[in-house]
C-alpha cells in the first residue's frame, strides 16, 4: 500500500476506518489487488511502472451526503482525494489520480438517472451513469432522445462533459450542461444557476441564475466534486444526413471551409469539418492505411510538405480529392432537403467542386440496421472505437495531442506544417507517417481541433521519445497560439503553461481560487495544472 504523501500509516488507517463508517466496509478498497484496479489502463508510463501514478485507496459513496462526509474526513487527515465518474476516461487518466497517493472517490455507485423530462427535453443524472446505461434507460421507456455519446460509450455524461469531452451528436458536451450540484472542498453542497433558488423549478431550464456563472469553474478543475448535472437533450429528428464537398484543387479548401463554416454559423448544420484526402491517404491516425501511395509520405517528409501542384498532380493520378469539407444536418425532412439543396447551390459556385450526399438516417432507427462505426454519431453508444488501437497492434492503448485552431483552411495548413516540422526536427518519421495530415474537426462551432493519436507501446524508450515529442508539440503549437483543449494527466502542467498571458495570470487566478476554496488542498491536486499552495513549485 502506498500512503498519501504526508499522512502517516496510523492516521491513514483511521481515515479509512472513518470512510468505512460512512459508506460501509465493502465500499472502501485498500488491499493492493483492489487498489491496483484503479491504475490507468492507458498510461503513457505503461512500460515504466516506476513512473506510474497510483491511488492509495478508493472509497465508493452512494449518496451526496456520503460524498460530503468523505470530504470532511479527508480534510481532517489532509488526505488528497481524486473523484472519478465511471473511470473510463481512457487516454485521459482513466480511474487513476493525477497525484499519486490520492484516495480515489469512485462515484460509479451514484448511477441514478434522476429525471428525464420528455416534454422540456432535459435530464438530470449522477456521475456514475454511463452513456450505455442512459441509452438502455431511454429505450426501455421509449423516450425519443439521442445520447450525446463520445467514442466509446461506457464513459459518463457528467464526467465527459466536465472534462470538455465531445460527441458527434452535439459536439460540445459541456455546452449542454444546465445546472450542476457540487460538494465543495469544505463539504458544503452548492447548486448553480437557478438551483440556488430553493423553490425554483427552472434549475435545468435557465443556466445563468443571478450573478457570476460559475458552472465552468467545476469543469477540468479541482474546486469540488460534482454529484449531479442537468443536460439539455437532443430529441430524435425526423432525419439526419451528412454531405461532403470535394475538389481536386488545393486552394479551393479556403473557400470551401469558409462556405461550410458559414452554414454552421447560420445554424443550418450542427457539425462540420475539413480534410485533404490525398494528404491523409497513408495516415494510420484513424486506425488503418486506406491506400498504398509511397509518394504521399515522401512529400509529407519534406520540410515544405509538398507543393500544391504536387498534391494536385498526385490527387489527379490517384483520383483522390485534394480538398474536402463535410457537414451534417438534422431536423424535419423538409428542412434537411432544403439545407442540402442550399449546400449544392453554395458549393456549386466554386468551380470544380462536387457535392456528395450520404444516405439519410430516418428516426426512429432500427439499431440492428446501423453499421457499428456509425452508431455513436446517431446517438447509440458502443465500444467500436477500441478497434482503432487494436488494429494497430498496441497492447497499452493510446492518448491524444489535440490543439485548437481557427476554423479556417489557413490555420489547418499552418498547424499541420508546424506539427510536421516538429516531428521532422525530432527525427520521428514513424510518427510523421502515422499522423500524415489532419483536417479540422468541428466539434465546436467556430474552432477546429486536430487529434494526433499517440500509441503506447511495450517499449519504454519509444514511449519516452513520444512523451518528449508531445511536450515539444504542445510548446511549439502553444507558442503559435494553438494550445490544447484537453490533455492526459502527464501533460496537464505543460498544457496549462501555454496559457501564459500576463505572467500566467490565468493559472495564478486558478491557484488563488484553489487556496481560498480548498486550503488543505485535498481535492484532486494537480488536476489541469492547478496545484494547492502546499504542493506548488516555487
Amino acid at each position, binding site marked *: 500500500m502506498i500512503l498519501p504523501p504526508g499522512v502517516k500509516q496510523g492516521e491513514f488507517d483511521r481515515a479509512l476506518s472513518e470512510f468505512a463508517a460512512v459508506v460501509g466496509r465493502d465500499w472502501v478498497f485498500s488491499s493492493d489487488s483492489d487498489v491496483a484496479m484503479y491504475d490507468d*489502463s492507458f498510461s503513457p508510463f505503461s512500460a515504466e511502472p516506476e513512473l506510474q501514478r497510483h491511488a492509495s485507496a478508493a472509497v465508493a459513496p452512494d449518496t451526496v451526503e456520503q460524498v460530503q462526509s468523505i470530504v470532511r474526513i479527508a480534510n481532517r487527515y489532509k488526505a488528497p482525494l481524486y473523484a472519478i465518474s465511471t*473511470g473510463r476516461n481512457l487516454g485521459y487518466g482513466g480511474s487513476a489520480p493525477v497525484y499519486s497517493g490520492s484516495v480515489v472517490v469512485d462515484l460509479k455507485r451514484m448511477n441514478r438517472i434522476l429525471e428525464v423530462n420528455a416534454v422540456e427535453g432535459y435530464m438530470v443524472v449522477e456521475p456514475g451513469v454511463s452513456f450505455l446505461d442512459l441509452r438502455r434507460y431511454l429505450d426501455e421507456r421509449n423516450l425519443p432522445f439521442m445520447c450525446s455519446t463520445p467514442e466509446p460509450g461506457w464513459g459518463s455524461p457528467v464526467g465527459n462533459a466536465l472534462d470538455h469531452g465531445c460527441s458527434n451528436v452535439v459536439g460540445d458536451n459541456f455546452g449542454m450542461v444546465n445546472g450542476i450540484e457540487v460538494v465543495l472542498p469544505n463539504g458544503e453542497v452548492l447548486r448553480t444557476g437557478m438551483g440556488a433558488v430553493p423553490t425554483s423549478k427552472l434549475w435545468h431550464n435557465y443556466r445563468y441564475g443571478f450573478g457570476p456563472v460559475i458552472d465552468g469553474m467545476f469543469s477540468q478543475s479541482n474546486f469540488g466534486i460534482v454529484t449531479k448535472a442537468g443536460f439539455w437533450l437532443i430529441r430524435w429528428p425526423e432525419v439526419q444526413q451528412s454531405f461532403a464537398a470535394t475538389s481536386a484543387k488545393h486552394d479551393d479548401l479556403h473557400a470551401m471551409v469558409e462556405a461550410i463554416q458559414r452554414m454552421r454559423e447560420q445554424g443550418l448544420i450542427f457539425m462540420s469539418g475539413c480534410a485533404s484526402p490525398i494528404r491523409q491517404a497513408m495516415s494510420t491516425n484513424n486506425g488503418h492505411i486506406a491506400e498504398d501511395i509511397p509518394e504521399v509520405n515522401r512529400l509529407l517528409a519534406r520540410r515544405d510538405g509538398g507543393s500544391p501542384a504536387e498534391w494536385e498532380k498526385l490527387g489527379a493520378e490517384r483520383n483522390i480529392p485534394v480538398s474536402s469539407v463535410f457537414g451534417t444536418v438534422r431536423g424535419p425532412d423538409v428542412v434537411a432537403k432544403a439545407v442540402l439543396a442550399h449546400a449544392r447551390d453554395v458549393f456549386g459556385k466554386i468551380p470544380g467542386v462536387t457535392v456528395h450526399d450520404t444516405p439519410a438516417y430516418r428516426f426512429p432507427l432500427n439499431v440492428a440496421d446501423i453499421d457499428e462505426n456509425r452508431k455513436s454519431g446517431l446517438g447509440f453508444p458502443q465500444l467500436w472505437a*477500441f478497434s482503432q488501437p487494436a488494429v494497430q497492434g498496441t497492447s497499452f492503448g493510446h492518448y491524444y495531442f489535440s490543439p485548437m485552431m481557427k476554423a479556417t483552411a489557413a490555420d489547418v495548413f499552418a498547424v499541420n506544417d508546424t506539427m510536421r516540422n516538429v516531428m521532422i526536427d525530432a527525427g520521428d518519421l514513424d510518427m510523421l507517417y502515422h499522423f500524415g495530415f489532419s483536417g479540422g474537426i468541428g466539434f465546436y462551432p467556430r474552432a477546429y481541433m486536430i487529434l494526433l493519436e499517440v500509441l503506447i507501446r511495450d517499449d519504454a524508450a519509444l514511449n519516452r521519445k513520444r512523451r518528449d515529442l508531445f511536450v515539444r508539440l504542445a510548446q511549439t503549437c502553444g507558442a503559435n497560439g494553438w494550445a490544447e483543449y484537453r490533455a492526459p494527466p502527464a501533460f496537464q502542467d505543460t498544457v496549462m503553461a501555454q496559457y501564459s498571458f500576463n505572467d500566467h495570470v490565468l493559472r495564478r487566478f486558478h491557484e488563488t481560487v484553489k487556496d481560498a476554496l480548498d486550503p488543505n488542498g485535498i481535492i484532486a491536486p494537480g488536476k489541469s495544472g492547478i496545484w494547492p499552495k502546499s504542493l506548488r513549485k516555487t
Partner: protein
Amino acid sequence: MLRITAGGLPAVLAVLSLGFAGAARAADAPDVAMGHELFNKWCYGCHAASIKHGPDATLLGSVVAGTYTLQQRYHGSKPAALEERTDLTPTLIESVVRHGLNLMPRTRKTEISDVELAEITAYLTRARP
C-alpha cells in the same frame, strides 16, 4: 501478456464477497442467465462475434477490439469470439477482468461486483451440449 500491477501477480479472485451489487443473488450458485445478461452489458461491445458493417467497410470498420485481438492471437486455432470458447477457466476470466489484458482495461468492483463476475464466469464456462 497479463499486466503485472502494483498489487503483485494477478490473483485468483475467487472470494465472493457479500455486500456488493448483486449480493442479493446467491453467491454459491451463480446465475448463468444473469451472467449472459451481464456479458451483453459489459463484454459484448468488444467481444461480439461480428458486427454490422457495409460491404465496402475497411478492416477498421468491420471489427471490434476484443474479437479482432483474439483472432490475431489464435489465427483460428481457437474461436475469436469469447462466447464460442469452451476452454475458458474461472481463473483466467477473473484475472483478465480484474487486471486487464492487451487493450482491455481493468474492471473495478464498483463496476462488476465479485458476485456478478462469478455470474459472467458461469455463463462463459457453462456446460455446452
